[in-house]
């Protein structure tokens, strides 16, 4: 009974706590201070049109006071395309259509978790080209790339949306 006022307060702040109320202590606080920070870092700031891959590192950092558990389904490309979404714009601000977003049916044996302690980081390497439409060809120029992470799956783990810093990508003519 004592927790009821507290629960109502969290309900107002973050809707997902309705389902995973027990996680509230891990991923959010009363002051709504973020528990995770997401940073994007292009491995190569300048790439070439004929590059097969455009690797980009996505770094999760625990910026809270308590450990944070993450659903570890980062190795599977299909799963990556569900939980990561790339927002990409060209130098004029025109959005570049990308893949990403959707639903995934977890199987019992595929569910893995890992925990980030305070200030610990975890890096996932994505290939930006995996998120471009099949028939899309990058043109030379500069782009802003922002990585969005969204997870609604798992138990006792972080659920919600994280948005990275915009990263500048320069695509040069074929070397």
């Amino acid at each position, binding site marked *: 009974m004592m927790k009821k006022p507290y629960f109502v307060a969290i309900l107002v702040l973050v809707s997902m706590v309705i389902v995973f109320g027990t996680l509230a202590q891990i991923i959010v606080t009363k002051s709504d201070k973020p528990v995770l920070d997401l940073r994007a870092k292009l491995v190569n700031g300048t790439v070439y049109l004929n590059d097969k891959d455009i690797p980009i590192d996505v770094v999760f950092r625990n910026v809270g006071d308590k450990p944070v558990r993450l659903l570890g389904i980062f190795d*599977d490309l299909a799963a990556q395309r569900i939980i990561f979404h790339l927002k990409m714009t060209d130098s004029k601000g*025109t959005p570049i259509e990308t893949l990403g977003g959707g639903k995934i049916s*977890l199987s019992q044996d595929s569910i893995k978790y890992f925990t980030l302690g305070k200030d610990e980081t975890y890096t996932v390497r994505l290939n930006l080209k995996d998120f471009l439409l099949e028939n899309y060809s990058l043109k030379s120029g500069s782009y802003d790339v922002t990585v969005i992470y969204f997870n*609604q799956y798992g138990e006792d783990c972080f659920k919600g949306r994280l948005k990275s810093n915009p990263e500048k990508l320069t695509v040069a003519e074929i070397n």
Partner: protein
Amino acid sequence: MTIEVEGTAPSQHEPVNIALAPWETRVLDIMNDLVGHGNGYVKSEGGISITHSGAPGAVLARMFISEPGKGYSAANSFIDPETTASQRWHGSGLRLKNLDGAKLEPVMTVRNTAPGLSRIQGRIIYTRSDGTTGTVDIPQKPVAAGKTKTFSMENLVKNLPSDATYGGIELEYDTPNGTVVTSVQSISQNGDHVFQVPMFDPQNMPSSAGGAPWKGESDNRTIVYIKNETDMSRNFIVHLKYDGGQYTPGIKEIKPRQTVAIDFQELRDRQIPDDMGSVIPLDIMTGQIAWSARGREAKTLSGRSEQISMYGGVVNTYSCFNCCENSTADTWINPQAAAIVREAETWFMANQTETNCYQQQYGPFVANVSMWSSTETDVATVSDGLVYGAGVGYSEIGATVPTVLWFHWGGGYCEPWYDEVYRHGSVEVVGVEKIQYKVGSTWTDIPSGGIGPVCNGTSVSFKAIPTSGSFPSSQPTWSGDASGNGVEKTVTFSTAGSRTVSATAGNSVSTMVNVGPANANITLTWLAPAVTTNTGSGQSTASAAPFVPEYIACADLGTNEWKLRVKKVEAKTNITIYTGGFRDPSANPPISQTEAIDANTKMNAYYTSGVKQSWHTTAASEAHENYHNTEWTCTANHYWGPTETALELLKVSYASYNSEAAAITQIKAAATGADAKMAAFRTASLTYWGTLADNAASRPYAAGQIVLNGHISTIVTLAATNNWTGVPGVATANPNVANPCYQQFSAYNP
């Protein structure tokens, strides 16, 4: 002076001598004062001769005759035999019928003052209603010396055409000049009207110009008679000046010997326009008539006016001659400039004004032109002032116009100075060079392929450009989707497809206008989910395929905008189904009680755990992922409405992009353009989709569980058959799959 009377009973015994003081006027009764027998009477024929001792012209005499019993009265003037120059007497305006069409009896009275017999003969030249003339000869009549004879001409005119109502009379005699005087009258049968015809010596005519007052009240008719005294066709002009205006029927031709009657009251009442298009206002009742012969020869025409009151029984004759014929005052061509289209015609005319010898000005009127000319006959030809547009260009239209100035040297002598002047104007023969259309406030040439697509329901303003100069009034004519006349035309297009607008002014120029479809809201076109099956043991997914929009753009030229229109948007869910990693109870059913318990326990746990278990079916996965497709469909459908509205508010300057494709490219690429709107649409949809639970006891697992429940029931049946115990049945019989988009939609303002 001595006054000698002939034709009384008793006769005058001897001439009477009387003396007139300077400027004195005296009225003398014939029987009392001149014959001396107050109880005598005046015979039906007679004459009076007056001889005076004063200077020529110092005495004026008039004689008034009346016979009240017959309603007859007449005023006769005297002539001076010394001033006659020929053996002829002419008179114009001999009326053959009264104004009401009643028959009149023409009567001629001849007095022979010669010492011997005089023979008189002549002719009546009548005028038909069509302007043609006819002649009736007056047989020779003898008149003894000193006698007066009256001859009725009724028999001469009784068989004339019914439309011959007036004419002229010409008499000649064989005694010396001035020895015969004549008086001609047309008398109504009741005697109320006596139309006196003043006779004059044609060799002693005044100028062929004069004037008369005009009264146009209901019962007052003023008829002007002009008579050609020569054997050649002549021209004359007559004007009516009234308070506030002037009316000039124009220069008229008069045939040899013809008499012409002009009735301004009839011209006024019938509102017949003159050469310049003016009419006499109906409320004009008085004015001043002026007439003049045209040409370089003097004394060719005679003229007078006659005022008639039918009900008052009064007829007055009036003749006042000017010192000379009228002189040309000014000449110009009208219009000074004109524009016509190719193959069209327009009239040019020469206008003049003239003055009488008292410097009173008349006109303008349409002048006679001796020659018309065009400097560029491949552009315009001219005939009698009618200009024909032969080809596009400019030509000078010239008119050679006769003019005459009359110099009055006194003593009734006038000398003409004849000339021809050249006056010119210009004609522009135009066609349609092209059609322009208005973009915002700027007129722009229409490209060869036409314009468009223009937005359905919007208006486009067109302007026809002439080959040169400007179009004539009411040109060009518009057709196709446009109609009417004028240089500019605004058309509202409400029918989709290829439309045509044409401008015609001699030639036609057309342009095609591609009109876009009427704008209507569309719904997303949902394609069947793209399902990929993988035999591995991975995790099935349902992802949102990119939306595939198809745009068109239409031009709102009035606002100088290309506007984006959404033609179609395809949407789809990509589904990947993994068929491995589990045992399918339908393909590989449990073979023992233990397996049966495990199978149903695991399959019941699908819904309650939100995780695919080791007993599972592909159909259940398909049901699960298809449910996600249903979620994605209702999600995107919800956010599409405001997205379409936002997309169709996007626009770019029409003038800046020369094609629909270029406009669409720009509208898509702008920072807040269509691509950004679609990205926002996708983000909003994905965000909402993420709020739809996909875990234990959620609707997607319910969809899969419903499939699995069938297998659970089958295993229960199998267990019963095999007497297996402890096998659980369906744990969740009717899990909730209703209302896939059950969460409240978030606010969205793309």
